[in-house]
């Protein structure tokens, strides 16, 4: 049919599916996912489950396949075998057009931010709302100002990305990813190349989104300090504003670590289990 509209929209779900995807339900599932580029095996029967509202932190050496997992969730790559569920939909065989619908409920923070050079901070953050969701301009501006205020960059709204520091670029990328209120946020090395103080501000944005906006998140990193900061802290609203305190046992249990080694899942568990592990590979990674 000529001139049919293929603009993606968020899928309307049945009440039964909404209930099945309620608190405590799996929101991302990998089942025996394999991927190889020519002869090089990237992922070898990788399986894991992300529970709604929880955080999964992927650790591993460079080239271990951490970022590949995020690209598979987004449908930017297709697995050779295995099953991937995202938000209640099987995505491994979906076409690009069908994936556009799934992506409407996902946010991704790329390495280095991947902000659009030719657009201002305002245009970058409001891109999805304006271009894809066709929201009215005043509504877009209101949401952009809200999310930039949330990450503390309201004064930078009309700057170009080239005028921002590395940390500010990452935070704008987080604002862009969260602007359309996705249920899942994916972070690809969000703190790599940043100084420790700036890294903490980025970590705190991740914690705030998880604890205050109830967004399920997958964080890929090889920065252990940041990984443990995200798993061991929680954001609480106080009369003085938002504060970051040591997480309680329940909260810490919601952040799970997953270590990849040679394309396989080498370890899966909480931060306490990771710290207590005597596995030689984990010890060498942690030391």
């Amino acid at each position, binding site marked *: 049919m000529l001139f*049919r509209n293929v603009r993606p929209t968020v899928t309307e779900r049945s009440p039964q599916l909404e209930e099945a995807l309620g608190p405590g339900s799996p929101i991302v599932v990998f089942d025996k996912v394999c991927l190889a580029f020519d002869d090089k095996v990237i992922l070898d029967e990788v399986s894991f489950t992300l529970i709604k509202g929880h955080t999964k932190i992927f650790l591993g050496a460079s080239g271990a396949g951490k970022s590949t997992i995020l690209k598979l969730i987004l449908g930017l790559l297709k697995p050779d075998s295995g099953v991937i569920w995202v938000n209640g939909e099987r995505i491994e065989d979906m076409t690009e057009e069908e994936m556009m619908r799934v992506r409407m409920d996902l946010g991704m923070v790329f390495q280095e931010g*991947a902000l659009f050079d030719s657009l201002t901070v305002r245009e970058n953050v409001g*891109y999805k709302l304006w271009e894809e969701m066709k929201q009215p301009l005043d509504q877009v501006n209101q949401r952009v100002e809200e999310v930039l205020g949330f990450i503390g960059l309201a004064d930078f709204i009309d700057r170009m990305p080239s005028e921002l520091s590395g940390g500010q670029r990452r935070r704008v990328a987080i604002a862009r990813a969260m602007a359309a209120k996705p249920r899942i946020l994916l972070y690809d090395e969000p703190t790599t190349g940043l100084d420790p103080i700036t890294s903490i501000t980025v970590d705190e944005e991740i914690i705030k989104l998880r604890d205050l906006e109830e967004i399920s998140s997958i964080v890929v990193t090889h920065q252990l300090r940041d990984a443990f900061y995200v798993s061991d802290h929680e954001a609480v609203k106080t009369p003085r504003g938002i504060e970051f305190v040591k997480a309680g046992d329940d909260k810490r249990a919601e952040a799970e670590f997953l270590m990849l080694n040679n394309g396989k899942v080498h370890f899966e568990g909480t931060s306490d289990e990771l710290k207590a592990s005597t596995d030689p590979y984990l010890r060498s990674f942690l030391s």
Partner: protein
Amino acid sequence: MIEWTKAALLELQEYLRLVAATSRALVTRPYYFRDIVEQFQAIGLGSMTVVLLTGTFTGMVLALQSGITLDQFGARSMVGRLVSASMVKELGPVLTALMVTGRVGSGIAAELGSMMVTDQISALRALGTDPIRKLVLPRVLAGVIMVPVLTIIADAIGMVGAWIIALTQLKVASSVFWNSVVLGLFIQDVWMGLIKPFFLGFAIVTIACHVGLRTTGGTQGVGRATTNAVVAASVVVLGVDFLLTKLLFVLMY
């Protein structure tokens, strides 16, 4: 040799997939009208200066050279006929296409290549935008429509350049020159000069988009992609020009 052939076939397959996806994007919504207008401006208006200069100097040098040759046969007054036929049928379309390749083809490959290596294309897809609809289709539409328009302008300004030389250097009267220009053109020539740029514009922009979207290897890769896009598009322009000329001769003359 086998590896080279496999790589070439893969490249051709990916190019044809891009063309198919662009065709699909042409007949299905959504359209990004702002980007389409922007590309018409960037490719059309942006290339005007270079096309005007190229057209003028080509017309001038053609008149100068052909004037000297025609003098040997005492046919200096026929200079308009020779210039108009050459410009409209061949030099206008080909030189405009080559100029657009240098200016627009390189720009598209560099821009899309940079977006590839900095993950901006992946970010577009992650935000729910199809890069073919947002980036490729507007450029292809602008190339297909604006290259013929630029060619007409190059033809016209080339003739004006030739007239200036005929008048000032060759001492051919204006009325004789313009009369000769009209006599030298047949309707088939005009059609040939108008049909070819559509195909050349399409080839330039699709090749540049294809090369840009397959860029890998950081800033060095962007440089390589830009060079490849210009070289490939230039060669294809000359090859397509030959094939189209041959085909149109069979069909129209």
